[in-house]
């Protein structure tokens, strides 16, 4: 039974499990380092050092923090709804990890005589699967805010719902142009279609819209009204502490990785290198990861640079600028593809 089956070859079940474990393990090994990376970089942007006490270059900082978080007392407000309060961070991290399975880190390789695709699964509906998981991840934020039984959390969650719905439309439409040009929804197929030219060139408008919408979708600055600390303490996870808080934190970083991965796959040619360089297969994941790091660095850079938008600015930007731009992009692309 392969519900997501357009994998063009038979893949052994233990290969699938092994791939899942490797992706999961690597992702959770990289996530703590990303937090250090962000804090170091933010520090540099602000003319200070960032964490540099624990381990070499402060690299062991997340280990110390995770120890601290894991040993904290699990408390919740008396007004909160117990099981939903515990469930919400689980939904957030589950959907984020699930979306990571889609990112193609490399082409199909021959390992020990078996054909192994360097991705979790290759789905015939590609980006739609990611959007479906993003749709479910709303509930992680909304239930977390609602179940906390606190006004700050509730307001943060409601802002989050409105913001995520508004920007999801533009984000999806921005990818339609790429899908139309490539003629397939499979993410590996889209990468193969970019062999001649990366889609960032013909789909530059789509790329910009996708990038802007991604900032809102991942609740990153300057669209982080969901957790606007000046007004809402920390938004939907105000009442969270200990490991549930870490779950929310990691979900945010994981979403950042997923969005970067999608951007790399759709616009930057995935594992392809420019100028016709074809390195051996094991280089593919490194190429993809290097490209993802460009986006993640950009995310952090923007956080250090731009101030937070006002709420009405956020909404009018999403509906009056991004959506018409994305629609126009789709229209022009459709005309060009057909003609």
């Amino acid at each position, binding site marked *: 039974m392969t519900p997501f089956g357009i994998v063009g070859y038979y893949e052994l079940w233990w290969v699938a499990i092994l791939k899942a474990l490797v992706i999961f393990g690597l992702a959770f090994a990289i996530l703590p380092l990303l937090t250090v990376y962000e804090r170091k970089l933010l520090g540099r942007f602000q003319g200070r050092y960032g964490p540099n006490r624990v381990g070499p270059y402060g690299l062991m900082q997340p280990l110390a923090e995770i120890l601290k978080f894991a040993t904290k007392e699990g408390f919740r407000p008396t007004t909160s709804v117990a099981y939903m309060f515990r469930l919400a961070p689980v939904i957030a991290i589950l959907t984020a990890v699930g979306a990571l399975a889609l990112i193609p880190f490399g082409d199909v390789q021959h390992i020990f005589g078996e054909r192994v695709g360097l991705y979790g699964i290759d789905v015939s509906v590609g980006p739609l699967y990611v*959007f479906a998981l993003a749709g479910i991840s709303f509930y992680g934020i909304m239930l977390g805010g609602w179940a906390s039984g606190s006004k700050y959390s509730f307001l943060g969650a*409601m802002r989050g719902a409105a913001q995520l719905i508004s920007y*999801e439309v533009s984000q999806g439409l921005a990818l339609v142009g790429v899908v139309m040009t490539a003629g397939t929804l499979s993410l590996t197929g889209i990468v193969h279609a970019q062999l001649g030219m990366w889609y960032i060139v013909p789909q530059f408008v789509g790329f910009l819209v996708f990038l802007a919408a991604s900032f809102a979708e991942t609740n990153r600055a300057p669209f982080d009204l969901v957790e606007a600390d000046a007004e809402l303490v920390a938004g939907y996870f105000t009442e969270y502490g200990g490991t549930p808080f870490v779950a929310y934190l990691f979900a945010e970083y994981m979403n950042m990785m997923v969005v970067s991965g999608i951007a790399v796959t759709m616009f930057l040619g995935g594992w392809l290198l420019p100028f016709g360089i074809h390195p051996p297969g094991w280089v593919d994941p490194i190429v993809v990861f290097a490209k993802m790091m460009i986006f993640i660095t950009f995310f952090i850079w923007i956080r250090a640079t731009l101030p937070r938008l006002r709420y009405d600015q956020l909404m009018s930007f999403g509906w009056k600028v991004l959506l018409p731009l994305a629609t126009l992009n789709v229209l022009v692309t459709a005309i060009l593809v057909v003609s």
Partner: protein
Amino acid sequence: MAPVFFFLAALGALSGAIGVVMLRNPFYSVLALVFHLISLAALFLLLRAEFVAAAQVIVYAGAVMVLYVFVVAYVGSGEELTSGGGLRVLGPVFALVLAIELCIAMLGSALKGISGKGAPYIPGFGSPRHIGTLFLTKYLFPFEVASLLLLVAAIGAVVLARRRRGLEADPEYQARLHKPVSHLAGSMAESVGARRDR
């Protein structure tokens, strides 16, 4: 593997549907509906309708239900809804009529399929390409009519909101918003009284 998956999804769909009707708190009702829709998407996956499954989750669970949750959470989920007298009588009648209709449909067609092998799977069936082609050839007219219907609904919503003075600017609020303020307001120059309002 497939039967286990089917029964899990079917149980989820059933329990979600029952939860929508039985739960007293509207907020939990909406969440039960979300659970039901996601379980339905899992059933679609089993039928190899990947596109329908993804669309189901994106459109219903991801967009429509988020709005429901939004409204219910704001309007207040604490109090229980009161059921009207007319609905108390009409509800069971409608349920009975629907049950009879479903029974007719099931006994008429579905029972015959139990002993059969089911429809064969054609590669490419239910893929986005296949569905898109059908939409623009065989089902073009229903597709366009449905989109027109949605457009009418959207315009209707805007008109209704306008009539209740939802979108018109409140003059008092506007006056407060654009109150003339000194350009030094809130600055250090104002605090030491260096310059008066102009």
